[in-house]
């Protein structure tokens, strides 16, 4: 089963993949990385099956690093601060990922993230918020917990 990592910082992405592959060898080679909100939108635009064991989602995401074009109005208005929340909403609306566990992994304040999720009326079922830090352990623990959960196959 693939693991989806949505992280715009190249180095943090590398760190997360390295840490998790080292700690949980079964995840080795399973990471599918999305680096911008636009990539995410393109990926989840259709209703084709997208099966992931779990998803790690950063909150502050850039829209596009590759091509031009004006982003949708909500992106212009909300900016990159709420990009992860928009992605989470879409994940919960997509038939393939409606119940996929999501670890929200961000340097932003946890309370602020929870408030924004609630504001968007997104279900918290299967959502875990793990703050980013210099210590990889919290994220590793959260993933391990998912691994032991019967819902994650």
């Amino acid at each position: 089963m693939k693991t989806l990592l949505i992280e715009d910082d190249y180095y943090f992405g590398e760190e997360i993949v390295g840490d998790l592959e080292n700690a949980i060898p079964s995840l080795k080679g399973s990471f599918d990385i999305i680096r911008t909100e636009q990539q995410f939108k393109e990926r989840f635009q259709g209703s084709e099956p997208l099966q992931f064991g779990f998803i790690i989602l950063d909150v502050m995401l850039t829209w596009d690093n590759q091509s031009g074009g004006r982003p949708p109005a909500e992106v212009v208005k909300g900016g990159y601060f709420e990009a992860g929340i928009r992605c989470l909403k879409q994940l919960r609306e997509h038939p393939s990922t409606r119940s996929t566990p999501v670890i929200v992994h961000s340097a932003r304040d946890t309370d602020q993230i929870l408030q924004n999720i609630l504001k968007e009326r997104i279900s918290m079922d299967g959502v875990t918020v793990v703050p980013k830090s210099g210590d990889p352990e919290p994220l590793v623990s959260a993933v391990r917990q998912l691994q032991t959960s019967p819902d994650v196959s």
Partner: protein
Amino acid sequence: MELDLRAAGSLLQPVFAVGKSRQISDITEVLCSIRRLCSADGCILWLWTEQGTPSNSRLFAAAEDFEPVNGQPAEPLWHYLLPDSPSTCAVREDAPQRFIRLPDERFPGDPDRQAMVRLGIRSFCTVPVRWPNALPAEGALGAVNFYRRSEEPFSEQEFSLAKSLAPLVPLLLDDLINHASFHLLRQIFDLLHSPAALPNPDLGFWTHQVLRTLQTVLTDVQETFNCLECSVYMIKRDAADGTIHLVSTIWPWRHRSQPASYAPGVGLTGYCGSRTTPICIFDLGRFEEDLPHIREKYPDIDWSVPFDLKVAAREVLTKGSGDKLPPLSFLAAPIVDHGRTLGVLRCCVARSAPYYFNQRQLDLLCLVAGLIGEWCGAYFRLRLAQERRVWLQSYVRTISALNGRAHEAAVGHKRDFESLFPKALEAAGNALPEAYGLAAHLASSDNRTLRFAQGSGQAWTTISSKEIQRRQAPVSLAEPGSPLVEAFSGNTVVSTGDLGSSNYRLSPFPEAAGVVVAPISSGSRKYGVLTIAFAPPGTLSEQAVTVAELLGRQLGLYLFLGETITELREKKEELERTVEVQQQAFENLNHQLKTPVFLARRAARHLMSRKNLVDTVREIPRLNGQLRRAEQVVTNIRMFYDLARGRPIHPNRTATRPEKLLERLSDTVRSHNLFSLNPLRGIHFTVADESPRLDLPNVVAWLDLELLDQMLDDLLDNAEKYGDPNTVVTVRMGVMARGQWLYVSVSNYGKTVSITSQAAKTLAERGQRGDTAVWRGQEGSGIGLYIVREILTAHHGRLEIYPTNEQNITEFRLVFPTGPPDGSHENSAH
């Protein structure tokens, strides 16, 4: 001659009759009684006419009584005596005369004799009489003549009795007039003061009830004076030209319609109304003869009224073969209330004795007119007060509604409170119906003129559009004598009711007779003036001053409110912008700082866990890169913090030659190549080849190299973030203005993120980010370029931003002055 008891009783009869009488015409009864006592067939009271010059004076029959012939009333006698008639001579000489037989040879040319012969009169006697209390020098006012048809002339005794009784006639006539006058006034007073006669202001004045009351008054006047016609004319309330209109009349003429109105000065009635002058004409039948005298007494009468009273009177008054008319007297009294003419009460032609109206009747008519004026005036004042109350209530309601709108506008943060002016002025106009025109002027921003803002009232509807445009011209605040300027400058209400007498012509109402100008202000803040003009003189009221003052304050408050809301809104928006920018900047910096710190900690962890040297060495640039990122953010935060608190940047400058600078640039570029923000983007940094070939070896720039690194890091990070993937960012060094300026530029290639020339002007403002940068949803605090600009300013240099050109190249240029700085404390050149 001695009177017997029967005769004495008969003598008292007329006296008693006078005591009971309410009509002046009862003088005929007196004549009848006296005639019978003197055994005469007829008796006439002849009086001097009161009109015309003495030479034009003549005796006229004021009252008469004749014994009927064969049961039929005698035909009327002649109405005037000729100047050379025996009676006229007797009156002039103030000597009683007895004419034994007619014709009397002593008066062969007496033309009246023929009339007497025709009536069968054979003898008569004449007794000159005076008014009671008249002085002997005043002479006789007329005569009482006794006539007899029988052959037997008046005996000496009868003549003596006639001489004794004749003086009673004017005495009793005087009493009759007094008595009838008192009775009439009492009757009209009671009528007009009865509850039923009080008009109801709610129903309007000219109701059926009011007209009926007036008709009763006219009937009372007619009965007392026994006049043929009696009418009331009134000025219409809203008519400004003073024309009076018929409202009630007793009109005897069958075939002629009465004039429905009189313009001021036209005819006797119009003259009376416009001049407020009582008029008494003794005999309009002798109008042509008496015209010089009438003109002298009532100058400038317009005689264009076609109505011929003489012809009309003949229809009613003449009987049988008689074609002569009694005096056609005319009276007109102005109906006045508190000095203001409301109309005219007039009556004309006495149809019974005494056949004339004189000053005494006119005085009485004036008193009646006075009672009518008081009655109408009381009603008009009551109605005016009620209307004013209604107007004021309406004004207050409208202003209250305007305040509601102002409140809504305030809540909705609207600024255009001037849009409330039209309704406000309209409300004031409704509260002051006598106002001719209203205007609001507002001061120009340079306080040199008052510009027209809004107008209302009839003054604006009765002039051409060209005239409106002319009147809407600004009023100079240097205009001498202008009440507008005085009110604005002094922030005080200015009112005058006497503009008409001066040569000054008010702008924008040059025809105004009075004006109130109130400042439109709030406290000491002056915005303009409100002008309320009045055209007819005397219409400026205290109420107008109050309304103007209140409305001026009201409009001032609106403008103040609008001004305050604008200021508050701008401040709020600025505050919101600042707060939002600061929040975003904080979020950005927080994120930008946390990420490299976390990654540095992880790198350090990895470093410590590496077992071999190769792995360790490979980790070091990554650790260094993250630390550099963190340091860059921290430095930016510190500088931003200092600048926000007004602490300027103090560069530690050293003299730097181009070669040294080039080395520094190369180091920075190398560092960025070793550790880019996102290696996946494939951005490569380079120093332009031509940079070392500077042919100005003497150029020295005084720079803080640490701050230069800071600026370059910011520019290179931006170039990496916004440049297209797999492109080259070029750092270039050069000189400008023959070596006066040294610059370092950073150019990146990017189709997707371009900077317009407009954006280039503001990009270095605090919190500004380019539109496309925002679209790209890139992180960024918007303070990097701001700090770069401030660092350059501290170096007396500048940041030049060249918008994206046709080759999709965007260039940021750091420009420094060359040569030694002002201070002498700098370090020596490297």
